[in-house]
C-alpha cells in the first residue's frame, strides 16, 4: 500500500475535487429534475473514449477525454432531437441513447483491446474506474477542470437559483435561460470527463445523484445544499479511493459509490431537515399537541355539562 506516496496524494486530491464538482453539479441536476441525464451522458461518453484511444494509438488521457466530451455532447443533442422531433418522451429518449451508446462503446472496446497495445492499455478501467492508474499530469489536468466547474457554479449562484426555481420569470428579467442550459450541459459533460477515469462511466452518475439527494435531507437553503453536496461528494471521493487502495487492483468507482450510499443512509435517517427521525418526531409532537387540545376541549365541555 503506497498510501502516502507522492502519487497517491495527487490521486486523492483529484478524487476530492472530482467529488466536490460532481456534488455541486448534481444539485443543479436535482432541481432541473434531470438526475438521469447525467447517467445517460456518462454512458454516452464511452464510445468517445475508445475512439480517442484508437485515433491516437496509445493511451493518452487528453485525447480520450476530448473523445468522451464529444460523444457525451452528441448524446445530449440526440436526446433533445429525439424528444423534439418525435412523440418519444424524454425518459425513453434517454434510455435509448444510454443503451445504444454504451453498447457501441463496448463493441469498440472489444475491438480496441485486440489492437496491438490495446490489451495492456487499461481501457477497461474506464468502465468501473481505476484512480490509481492516473499519472501526475493526468491528475493536474483533472484538478484544473474540477476547479473550473466549482468556480462556474459559484459565480453563477444567483443565476442558478432563479433559473431552477422559476425559469420563465428569469427570462422576464432578461436572463438568458438558453445560455444557462448550455452552461449546465457543459458542466455536466466536464464532470463526466473528469470522473471517467477515477469512477468510470457506469458509476459516475451516482456521484452526481447521491450527494445531492443526501444534502437535501439536511437543509432548506439552496446555498447550504450546494456546500453539503460538495462535502459529501468530496468525502465519498476520498474515502472510496482510500478503501480501494487496500486491495491490489480494486476498482475505485464502486467503493466511492458505496461510501456515498452510506452517507445517504445516514442522511435519510438522521437528516436535520427531512430525515426520517425528525419527521417521525415532529409528527408525534403534533399528534401530542392535538391530543392535548382535544383533551382540554373535552375537559371544558365536561365542565360545562
Amino acid at each position, binding site marked *: 500500500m503506497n498510501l502516502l506516496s507522492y502519487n497517491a496524494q495527487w490521486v486523492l486530491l483529484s478524487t476530492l475535487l472530482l467529488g466536490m464538482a460532481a456534488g455541486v453539479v448534481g444539485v443543479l441536476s436535482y432541481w432541473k429534475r434531470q438526475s438521469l441525464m447525467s447517467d445517460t451522458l456518462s454512458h454516452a461518453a464511452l464510445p468517445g473514449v475508445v475512439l480517442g484511444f484508437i485515433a491516437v494509438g496509445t493511451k493518452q488521457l487528453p485525447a480520450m477525454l476530448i473523445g468522451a466530451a464529444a460523444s457525451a455532447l452528441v448524446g445530449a443533442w440526440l436526446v433533445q432531437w429525439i424528444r423534439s422531433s418525435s412523440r418519444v418522451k424524454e425518459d425513453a429518449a434517454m434510455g435509448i441513447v444510454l443503451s445504444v451508446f454504451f453498447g457501441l462503446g463496448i463493441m469498440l472496446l472489444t475491438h480496441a483491446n485486440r489492437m496491438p497495445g490495446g490489451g495492456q492499455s487499461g481501457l477497461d478501467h474506464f468502465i468501473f474506474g481505476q484512480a490509481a492508474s492516473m499519472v501526475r499530469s493526468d491528475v493536474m489536468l483533472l484538478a484544473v477542470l474540477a476547479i473550473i466547474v466549482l468556480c462556474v457554479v459559484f459565480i453563477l449562484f444567483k443565476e442558478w437559483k432563479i433559473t431552477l426555481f422559476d425559469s420563465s420569470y428569469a*427570462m422576464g428579467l432578461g436572463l438568458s435561460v438558453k445560455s444557462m442550459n448550455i452552461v449546465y450541459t457543459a458542466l455536466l459533460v466536464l464532470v463526466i470527463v473528469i470522473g471517467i477515469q477515477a469512477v468510470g462511466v457506469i458509476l459516475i452518475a451516482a456521484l452526481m445523484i447521491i450527494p445531492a439527494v443526501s444534502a437535501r435531507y439536511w437543509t432548506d437553503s439552496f446555498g447550504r445544499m450546494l456546500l453539503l453536496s460538495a462535502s459529501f461528494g468530496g468525502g465519498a471521493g476520498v474515502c472510496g479511493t482510500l478503501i480501494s487502495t487496500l486491495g491490489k487492483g480494486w476498482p475505485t468507482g464502486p467503493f466511492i459509490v458505496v461510501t456515498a450510499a452510506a452517507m445517504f443512509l445516514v442522511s435519510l435517517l438522521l437528516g436535520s431537515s427531512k430525515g426520517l427521525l425528525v419527521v417521525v418526531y415532529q409528527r408525534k409532537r403534533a399528534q401530542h399537541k392535538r391530543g392535548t387540545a382535544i383533551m382540554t376541549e373535552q375537559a371544558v365541555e365536561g365542565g360545562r355539562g
Partner: protein
Amino acid sequence: MNATIVVNNLSAAYRKAEVLSGISFDVMPGTLTSIVGPNGAGKSTLIKTMLELHPRTTGDVSFLGQSYKLAKTKIGYVPQRGSVDWDFPTDALDVVLMGLYGKIGWLKRPRKSDREQAMEALRAMGMEQYADRQISQLSGGQQQRVFLARALVQDAEIYFLDEPLAGVDAATERIIMETLQQLRTKGRTVMVVHHDLQTVEDYFDHVLLLNRTVIAHGATAEVFTEDQLHRTYGGALRWMREKV
C-alpha cells in the same frame, strides 16, 4: 394619451392547434383590466405569448411604444402559483429578492440595501414576519403574496398577473386587490387573468372577454353584460350561473 400596450393580430398555437387567433386590443395607462373567459379560452397563453414565453404564429405586441425585448425591464409578471416547485429550498425574502436580480446586475451579489427593499415589499403585503420562512411552509395565499411582492420590487410600469386570486384566503384577496388598485392610481397598467365572474365589476375598470379571440374589450360597465358573457361562454354560462 398613448396606449401602454398595443396588441395587433396576435396568434398562437400548441402543437399546430391554434389557441389564439387574430387578437388585437389597446390598453391605456392607469387601467386595471381583467382577462375573462372559459377554461381553455387561452387566457394564460395570451399573457405568455405577449411576454414571449410562448411562441406566436402571427402579429406583434408593443409596450410603451417598444418591442418586448426593449421594454421587458418595465414589465412585472406574476405567474400562476402552481407554475413553480414550492419545495425549492429558499425562503420568502429570497424569492422577493429575485425581483431585484435584473437591477442588481447579473453575476453580482445582492447588497444590504436590496435586502431592505425586498423586506419593505414583504411588509407592504403584510408578510414581514414570514421573511425567513421556508416557502414550502407558507399557505397558498402567503405564497401568492410573496409572488406579488417579488413583482412589486421591480417597480414596473406594466404588470401581468395570472390568476392571482385562485385559491387564496379572503385577507390575501383584499391585500392583493388593494395593491393593484394602488398601482392603477399611480398610473401603472395592470392586466389580470381572473376566473370569478362575481367580482369582476367590483374589482376591475376594464374587461377583456376572451375565447380564442377577443369577444369584447372595454370599460367594465359597457362590456360586462349578460349578452357579451353569453357570446364568450356559450352554453356554459347558464350552468355556471346556476352553480353560483
